């Protein structure tokens, strides 16, 4: 501050007289993952955003290369707590493509049932967090209470409340009987009016509307060029859903509609999630009522210990978007390479552009509408050293230099 310039060739000096750093993150109540979003603001307006990663890199891809295919299945489902079933589904299917295994119809329907139950609770949790972020804590409590119903249903089907561990190469690990089926249908009946009520609340409540509508609007071209996926893509009017495109497992046999909204703002993304939760609910009911007969549980003792060489690229529609597993096998008991691309990785890392121009107060809303903040307020003085002129400019101006 006020130091004389030592570099004689320098033409300008930028002085930042008031530098208020408020680094919230990598650990913060609004963020589920340890990521730091660094916001540079000119007054209230965001002029530049940086996303810092690497706080929790666990080296899972390397770990999977070092372990057998069977251990990897359990590692895969531990990548994410909320959407663990889609991870194991995607990995299991990639390995099945390589090995040429085909699960039975009943097993495929049970897989879809657990994945759709997971989508309902995942969409409920992010809507609850959105309610909390905009200061509606009561709604957070209510949604989280009703989410417990789904967790119970998942426990009845898979045996576990969080980590389902239902998948196995060539089938599933547990089957359900009529008693369990009725129990789950009962829970779904209780849940349906609650989700409809919350959906109406998000659409009609004036305080939720004024905080979310028109905030973080994304055009479909921006979403596509930055590779954002899932509800962000469909909230901006792009018709793309892996379940409809790949028709993996039993999705080709179950009637359902893809939810697309044209608005592209935070409210549209949240409403896409509520509508998808309702669609998932109908799918779960349909699966339980039309569950094919036959065996679903695979005899694990008869499964191969080694797998043939080959490559497989499996996609799955996780609650947050397209999840990808690319598995390379060189033969033998361990995979040669496993590449995991989670939807949050693109949705968060590539989304820095979308905060620019919005007010600081909207940043948590936009972030949560993608899923996972921080603000730094700075102002600058620019000195022309050659002419000794001091000029006060907004930080926005300097941020534009950097881009040029």
């Amino acid at each position, binding site marked *: 501050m006020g130091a004389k310039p030592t570099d004689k060739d320098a033409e300008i000096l930028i002085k930042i007289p008031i530098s208020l750093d408020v680094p919230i993150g990598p650990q913060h109540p609004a963020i589920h993952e340890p990521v730091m979003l660094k916001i540079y603001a000119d007054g209230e307006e965001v002029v530049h955003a940086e996303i810092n990663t690497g706080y929790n890199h666990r080296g899972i891809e390397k770990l999977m290369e070092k372990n057998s295919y069977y251990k990897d299945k359990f590692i895969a489902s531990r990548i994410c707590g909320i959407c663990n079933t889609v991870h194991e589904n995607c990995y299991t299917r990639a390995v099945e493509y390589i090995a040429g295994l085909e699960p039975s119809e009943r097993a495929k329907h049970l897989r879809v049932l657990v994945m759709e139950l997971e989508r309902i609770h995942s969409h409920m949790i992010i809507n609850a967090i959105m309610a909390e972020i905009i200061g509606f804590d009561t709604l957070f409590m209510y949604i989280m209470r009703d989410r417990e119903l789904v967790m119970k249903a998942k426990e009845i089907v898979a045996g576990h409340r969080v980590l389902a561990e239902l998948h196995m190469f060539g089938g599933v690990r547990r089957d359900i009987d009529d008693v369990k089926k009725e129990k789950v249908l009962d829970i779904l009946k209780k849940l349906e009016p609650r989700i409809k009520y919350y959906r109406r609340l998000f659409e009609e409540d004036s305080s939720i509307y004024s905080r979310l509508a028109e905030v973080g609007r994304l055009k479909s071209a921006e979403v596509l060029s930055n*590779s954002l996926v899932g509800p962000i893509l469909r909230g901006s009017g792009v018709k793309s859903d892996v379940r409809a495109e790949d028709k993996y497992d039993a999705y080709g046999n179950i009637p359902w509609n893809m939810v697309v909204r044209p608005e592209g703002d935070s409210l549209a993304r949240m409403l896409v999630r509520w509508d998808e939760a309702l669609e998932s609910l109908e799918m779960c009911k349909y699966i339980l009522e039309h569950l094919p007969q036959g065996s679903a549980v695979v005899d694990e003792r008869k499964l191969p210990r080694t797998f043939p060489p080959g490559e497989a690229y499996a*996609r799955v529609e996780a609650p947050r978007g397209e999840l990808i597993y690319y598995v390379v096998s060189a033969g033998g008991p361990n995979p040669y390479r496993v590449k995991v691309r989670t939807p949050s990785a693109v949705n968060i890392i590539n989304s820095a552009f979308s905060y620019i121009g919005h007010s600081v107060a909207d940043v948590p809303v936009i972030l949560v509408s993608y899923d996972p903040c921080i603000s730094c307020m700075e102002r600058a003085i620019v000195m022309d050293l050659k002419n000794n002129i001091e000029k006060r400019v907004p930080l926005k101006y300097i941020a534009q230099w950097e881009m040029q």
Partner: protein
Amino acid sequence: MKQYTLRREVIKPNREVYIIDPAKIREVMQLIKNSYEDNVYLATIAGVDKAKENIFELNYFIHIVSLGKTIVIKTSIPRNNPKLDTIMDIIPGAYGAEAEIFDLLGIEFTGNKHLRRGFFVPLDIVSRGVYPLRKDAQV
């Protein structure tokens, strides 16, 4: 697309693979983007260290929204000179994937200014100059 394709393959299940010359990567990406009127997104880039063949293999997974299918652009570069042109100015969504591959596998994307070590890898491993996903890396 034909004039750029050296060989065609299929990755399970039914993903068309176009094997191309690494020097043509920018032209191919521009061609795909133009021919589908920007209705495409880059799903990810997967780098594979094929140490025995002394190459790095790069797989660009491109999702064509209007057709609802994913195609794969595969190319390989020598292991002792891991350099390739960036496609970030053509497809901005390549940022995360290129930064990750540089940090984990040590492939340099020429023209990408945002590459840095420590994007994902902890600093103690960065200071030892180790690229963890290489097959000869001791971690």
